[in-house]
């Protein structure tokens, strides 16, 4: 499993190729990008704050849980932080498995968990000002 937290952009295909996973019939990737509009505001910049030590630990837990639950052969998670512009890539989740159903389920489980459990917070900066993006609270943390 590869977990990377970085400020710089990434090439999804090059990152996946570098892992060179053999025997996987299916590979599913999710790429999340910064939205460039929210309601009627044009988003100039997205500031992503995170809790570095916990982010790494939590992403590792999320990846491991999905790997076990969905029989994934390999998991790659890259998440950016810092200042991003509209339409820039934020996150890559790529998983490999023998069968397609497991790959889809495993990738989606990781992306869903990222949204609700990974300690990132986003502030959207538009010409009208800065707004924190409302977060998500999973049932077990309420």
């Amino acid at each position: 499993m590869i977990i990377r937290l970085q400020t710089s952009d990434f090439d999804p295909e090059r990152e996946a190729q570098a892992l060179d996973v053999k025997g996987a019939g299916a590979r599913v990737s999710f790429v999340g990008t910064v939205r460039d509009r929210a309601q009627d505001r044009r988003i100039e910049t997205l500031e992503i704050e995170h809790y570095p030590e916990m982010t790494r630990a939590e992403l590792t837990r999320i990846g491991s849980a999905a790997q076990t639950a969905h029989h994934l052969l390999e998991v790659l998670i890259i998440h950016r932080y810092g200042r991003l512009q509209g339409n820039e890539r934020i996150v890559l989740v790529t998983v490999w498995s023998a069968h397609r159903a497991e790959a889809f389920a495993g990738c989606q489980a990781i992306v869903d968990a990222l949204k609700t459990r990974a300690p990132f917070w986003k502030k959207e900066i538009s010409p009208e000002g800065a707004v924190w993006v409302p977060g998500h609270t999973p049932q077990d943390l309420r």
Partner: protein
Amino acid sequence: MITVRCFATVREILGYAMRELPPSHEPQLASDILTVIAGERAADLPKPLLVAINCEHASLTSPVKDGDEIAFFPPVSGG
């Protein structure tokens, strides 16, 4: 010592990202730490308020001991 970390709106409201607190001689819960650091401003903090202890999700009723790192933050939005 107990390390307290604040993120996002919690950091903005309380005005700092990190501080250290001497541990109490009595058993302490996360809610006790919150009372110490937030005082009257507790009402201004985001609800729900999330808690992590030693980089794992926890709750306001989780115990905190000497050497722990406790963090307070609003709901997250990764991905």
